[in-house]
């Protein structure tokens, strides 16, 4: 490095320091790129408020007190007023510590999220619960059918049923007695279709489903199981 070169470097250094000093005085504002990050924070704290109590009373079959209790619990857990899929999965997984309930939780989420906007609000939540807990047998069967029908096209195919079955068996986890075999879900699906699929066309429609369930004593009896959950 020649002397001139070093002097050049020295001069550059001095210039850089000068710019910094000017910046300090505020006389020289280079473009700052930090503003955009802070804006995002505001969006996430938007909260959702449900409709009034009277409207919910009309729409669902819960009493006023029950709605109050439900909302208090809901609001406590989700202060923002909505549940997104991640939260939903996390909440549901607390009840099934041994297995993996995330797939089934996704199906449930989709069943509750009737308007498919990616989040379950209190109205969705309460509407779903109302059907399950206070609805007629047919309503409940309808709801269950809606749960199984993953693509909501009105009929359950074997693949859909297999997915559901696998997700349910996943919740059991590894340690079961007797040990879980690979083909257990498939066999279960087969027996289900044998029972439900009247015309053997490989899919189960809503009418077939309701009809077959109504004929089954066990199912009818167990539908009453959850009447007094709330």
């Amino acid at each position, binding site marked *: 490095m020649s002397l001139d070169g*070093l002097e050049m470097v*020295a001069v550059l250094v001095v210039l850089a320091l000068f710019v910094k000093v000017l910046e300090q005085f505020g006389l020289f504002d280079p473009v700052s790129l930090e503003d955009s990050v802070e804006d995002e924070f505001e969006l996430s704290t938007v909260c959702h408020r449900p409709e009034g109590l009277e409207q919910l009373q009309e729409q669902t079959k819960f009493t006023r007190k029950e709605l109050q209790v439900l909302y208090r619990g809901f609001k406590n857990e989700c202060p923002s007023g909505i549940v997104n899929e991640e939260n939903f999965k996390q909440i549901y997984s607390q009840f099934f510590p041994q297995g993996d309930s995330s797939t089934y939780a996704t*199906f449930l989420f989709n069943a509750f999220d009737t308007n498919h906007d990616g989040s379950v609000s209190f109205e969705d939540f309460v509407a779903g619960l109302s059907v399950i807990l206070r609805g007629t047998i047919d309503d409940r069967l309808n709801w269950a059918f809606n749960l199984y029908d993953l693509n909501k096209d009105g009929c359950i195919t074997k693949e859909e049923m297999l997915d559901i079955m696998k997700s349910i068996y996943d919740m059991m986890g590894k340690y079961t007695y007797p040990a879980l075999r690979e083909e257990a879900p498939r066999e279960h699906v087969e*027996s289900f279709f044998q029972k439900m699929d009247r015309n053997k066309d490989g899919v189960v429609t809503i009418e077939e489903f309701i009809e077959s369930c109504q004929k089954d004593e066990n199912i009818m009896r167990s539908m009453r*199981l*959850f009447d007094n959950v709330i």
Partner: protein
Amino acid sequence: MAAGVATWLPFARAAAVGWLPLAQQPLPPAPGVKASRGDEVLVVNVSGRRFETWKNTLDRYPDTLLGSSEKEFFYNAESGEYFFDRDPDMFRHVLNFYRTGRLHCPRQECIQAFDEELAFYGLVPELIGDCCLEEYRDRKKENAERLAEDEEAEQAGDGPALPAGSSLRQRLWRAFENPHTSTTALVFYYVTGFFIAVSVIANVVETIPCRGTPARRPPREQPCGDRFPNAFFCMDTACVLIFTGEYLLRLFAAPSRCRFLRSVMSLIDIVAILPYYIGLFVSKKDDVSGAFVTLRVFRVFRIFKFSRHSQGLRILGYTLKSCASELGFLLFSLTMAIIIFATVMFYAEKGTSKTNFTSIPAAFWYTIVTMTTLGYGDMVPSTIAGKIFGSICSLSGVLVIALPVPVIVSNFSRIYHQNQRADKRRAQQKVRLARIRLAKSGTTNAFLQYKQNGGLEDNSSGEEQALCVRNRSAFEQQHHHLLHCLEKTTCHEFTDELTFSEALGTISLGRRTSRSTSVSSQPVGPGSMLSSCCPRRTKRRAIRLANSTASVSRGSMQELETLAGLQHSSAPQSRSSLNAKPHDSLDLNCDSRDFVAAIISIPTPPANTPDESQPSSPGSAGRAGNTLRNSNLGTPCLLPETVKISSL
């Protein structure tokens, strides 16, 4: 206990309807649910402050006090609320946990108090939220450290009590480590300190130029060491002799010689005295005199011997050791900066004629002097580029050096304060123990006072009793009743130290044998018990005992020993004596005595435990020997006429 599990359970159960059509087996019936009363508001009254919350909120965590049926124990039916006699400020945090699912730790409360509250309400500390968990753990660790130091200090405080039969080695070692144990050790400590100082001063003074003797040659300056070689040599010899002696003594007394040899202090000692011996054996030839001079430099290490005497020096050394990583970082970053700037300065000044920057290592000196802002001025850049880089160098030097310094300072401060705290605690410990002892003896004294005032006499002089006995609280009454029951059970009475020692003193009248009693249950007054003086006083004391059963020293264990001793008439075993007690004649006297009481055989001879502040432990009681028991019952035996022995 996951947060909010209870809230979502109804939802999870409802969602199970999705399994129903798939179930191959019939599902079990639902558990019977009691008719829900709907949600109700509970009132929790904590020391007067009312908290109200939904019942559901508390039910969220069913394995805590408030969430389970345990709270029914605290239900106050008249006011319809749950009453807890606890700290209302802490309860806030507990209740917030139920509400939000996160337990926070209050900053201004003592961590111990918080822990206790958590334990009461059935919450585990693991529930503390992440935001407060770290701080909680840190404070808890700090507290634990402090308490551990307390215990250590206590144990160390017990140290001065030398176990009997410690060898010369052990005693010597203790004298070295802790100079305050005995006067000789203290003297030795100060003498060595003095000689260290003398040696260091001699080293310093012998280099000062003294005026040469004017008679011999033209007055020429000469170092004092050369002018008075003999004097300095004698002084040096004396110091080295003392240091050598001390080192050999320490080596002899050390419990683990290998460890001692490896310790820092012993290395310093060796380095301090070795040059002298090497100097003795190496004759003053010219070719090795250079090395000889180097060796004399090491004599200055004697000043490090002061660290045994000064705690501050030790703290400093310990701090430096603990800050090793920061110092290493400082060194590394400085080295980096020095190399960079030296290179730049060298090349900047290369073109100048008659420059001082002859090489990069030569530029190191300039860089160091500039970075530490010394600026001697012996090397100065002359080109403009050199000056610019030189100024940048000095600015960065200030920064780099300033960075690790606060870490080192805070470390030093922490260690220093820890030391201060330990010293303070040790000093306060004595006062604390004395106060505790006083409180303990206060209870006993209250009882004895009560007894002396005739409070124990049944039936007789009821009204006078009420007058002369001072008012006692319900607690005291029950406590005294309990002690009284014990007395009646064992047929012995509580008494105070003075009475007991005097009672023993009566036995020792005119009788001194080499055998002695076990000290375990005797109050040790230095030599006072052997007082053959005041025989009248003991007589008076004996009369006072007229109404009492056999008097014993404090503690029930001792009473039991005495009772057991009644049965034994064997001669006392040998034990080292603090008080010689006569026994043999008493044994014969007491054989005929008929005391009915609990019988305990304690065959083993007692050990010598000089600590009087401890009540006799069961261990020592187990070792209490015949002699003690015999001496205890010496009192009633001596004065059979005056002592009324109540038989059970």
